[in-house]
């Protein structure tokens, strides 16, 4: 059976096509203002990469905030369930999932069977989300990828105010003007981010094994600092792009429930 998962978020949309528990193709695009067109665009891209047609897909499940407006899915499922399922596939032993996306930071605890046991999120402010890193990277004039490498190159990381993105920005600018090396500043930014996230994670009473998904998991500086703060290894997905967790989960649910419905 060929299934697909379509995860329509406010910033990015992801599409994944799976067969027998393996990914055939995947695509990630920036979301348009219209969920329906985002969905069509990303699925068309995925289908093209797979060298097939939309009709070849047996069941497609939609998730993400725009899921109710995708006309071609057979069913929808909540992003948390999809994310948890996808994360378990990405990191088979995962019991705690830290997902830091562009706009929020979530921690999902799974039970042995992969069901969501507890879910908490920081949804009130930018620090502790990808947005914080984006803003800081822009101030430094570097790409997000580059920012992630700075922690490895620093000899003297700077401690930043981590509570508020606005004020941290002022501090970064000051340090830049004072001529501090980019590595030191970048490492400080990554640490500030990790500190913020660690509070949320620790509050969720995480259970090993801990894994991380979402775009920020590609920032080695944040990941390594977080490992130190939590005193625990953080598994990073190796089977596929960590941003695809939600779409993978949706495709897996499509397989599990067939046309019967995921909800």
């Amino acid at each position: 059976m060929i299934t697909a998962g379509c995860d329509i978020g406010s910033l990015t949309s992801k599409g994944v096509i799976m067969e027998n528990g393996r990914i055939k193709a995947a695509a990630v695009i920036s979301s348009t203002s219209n969920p329906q067109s985002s969905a069509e665009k990303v699925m068309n891209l995925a289908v093209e990469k797979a060298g097939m047609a939309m009709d070849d897909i047996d069941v497609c499940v939609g998730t993400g905030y725009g899921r109710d407006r995708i006309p071609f899915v057979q069913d929808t499922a909540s992003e948390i369930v999809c994310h948890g399922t996808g994360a378990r596939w990405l990191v088979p032993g995962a019991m705690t999932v830290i997902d830091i996306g562009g706009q929020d930071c979530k921690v999902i605890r799974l039970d042995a069977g992969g069901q969501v046991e507890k879910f908490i999120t920081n949804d009130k402010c930018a620090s502790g989300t990808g947005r914080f890193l984006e803003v800081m990277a822009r101030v430094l004039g570097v790409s997000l990828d580059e920012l992630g490498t700075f922690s490895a190159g620093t000899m003297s990381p700077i401690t930043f105010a981590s509570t508020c993105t606005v004020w941290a920005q002022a501090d970064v600018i000051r340090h830049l003007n004072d001529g501090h090396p980019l590595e030191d500043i970048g490492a400080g930014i990554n640490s500030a981010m990790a500190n913020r996230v660690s509070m949320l994670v620790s509050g969720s009473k995480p259970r090993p094994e801990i894994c991380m998904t979402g775009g920020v998991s590609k920032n080695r500086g944040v990941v390594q600092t977080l490992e130190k703060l939590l005193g625990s290894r953080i598994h990073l997905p190796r089977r596929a792009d960590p941003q695809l967790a939600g779409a993978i989960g949706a495709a897996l649910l499509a397989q599990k429930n067939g046309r019967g419905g995921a909800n």
Partner: protein
Amino acid sequence: MRPEIKEYNIDWMIWSIIKTAGRTTRGSDKEFYAMLEYVPYFRGILDPIVREGEAGKQFLELVGEYMGNIVNAHDDGKKLAMTTFCFSPAILYAMDIMPVTLEAISTLGALMWRRGTYDYLDYCCEVGFTETSCSSQRGSLGAYLAGLGENIDMIVCDSAGVCDTNANAFAFTSAYLDKPFYQLNYPPELVTDRTTSYHREDYYGLIAFLEEQSGNKIDEDRLRDVLTELQKQDEILTDIEEMQSLVPNPMPILYNLFIYAGRFFFAGMDNYTRMLETMRDTVSANAAEKKSGLRSGKENLRSLFCYIDHFAVNLSLWDWLDEHGITQVGNILSKYYNADAPYLEGSREAGYTINTENLVSMIDTMAQMNARMPMVLSIRGPYDAPYMWFENSLMLAKVFSADCVVYNGTPGCRNTWGMIKPFARDMEKEGLPTYIMYGDAFDERVESWDATAERLEEFFRVRGLL
């Protein structure tokens, strides 16, 4: 919380540091300054304190003794009471109970450690305490919640009716750790008969609680000793405060910290009296020569900190003020309102009197004195009500000839952030330039000291004060 932070108890760690720091003053100056090279972070507070001479040494000893009392209490067969800075510990000492004052321990951690008390601040939030709560309790509370401190036997506070976030920290801890709890509660008035009565009844309730929890009965002789000592302390403080109002202010700026920290630690105990005496001698000597207490010797400006000081990282605030020739004529923490206090002329009813005649009069004294502790006196009811924060701050500004007023607190301070803007506007109407600081006195992550200092400088320059 980082794994390495879990290795030691907070009280033991602070005690070790301060005890060791106290020993550094026994060497020669040369030895001392050579040793400072080896404590790159701690030197930021050790150096300024030791430079204050005898008073500094006594202060270090005082802090060491305070922390030692906590660490050794159980071995000495005494109970530990977790409490707040605005609760006078005199009653605890009179009943052989050792205080664990959260804000004091938070302050010490914030001053001494480069890493601040972040791990403890955040741990509180990890176990569900709101992140928006005041950092002054959280900075040490996290350790106790995590079991990284001495085992607490009871919890007492006196901030109900004054400061919710403070009182809530203790109520939360009581529920979280399942410990016995007593709150002194304050009505929105100060000097009415029913309020005086309430203070008294409430205090009797406190004593009953302390007796039950500690197994010690209140001892009239012990209480008399403590209150007699307190009377001495009040007299010395009065002398110092009278001199503080001189221009230039002959009191070294760091003495502000010594005065209130000492009082929070050891009100009614003779070690504090000795330190006060040393300080009075220095201040008198300066006053006799009409000398400013600032290191530069030149007083450019006089500031009243209408709330609290800034403790996040070393003694940066005092260093900064000192460097800029700005003397500090006190803050809300450093005034205690004995009815004889020089600034209570015309409103003696707002103060307390010490009467050691018998047990009843002494308990009454304690009740009324506790009702005049920092914040407890002035942060109840609307800020513009009689005796409350505005009238109180204005009076202090006038008596001590302040040129400006500075507000510094924490984002957790609900009751001041609820009205600081109208307060500042009213102060300005009285001709006092007033500055609102947006940092967190105990958590540098909110606003770095560099940013704080920059904005502080901006205020003084833009207002033409410097």
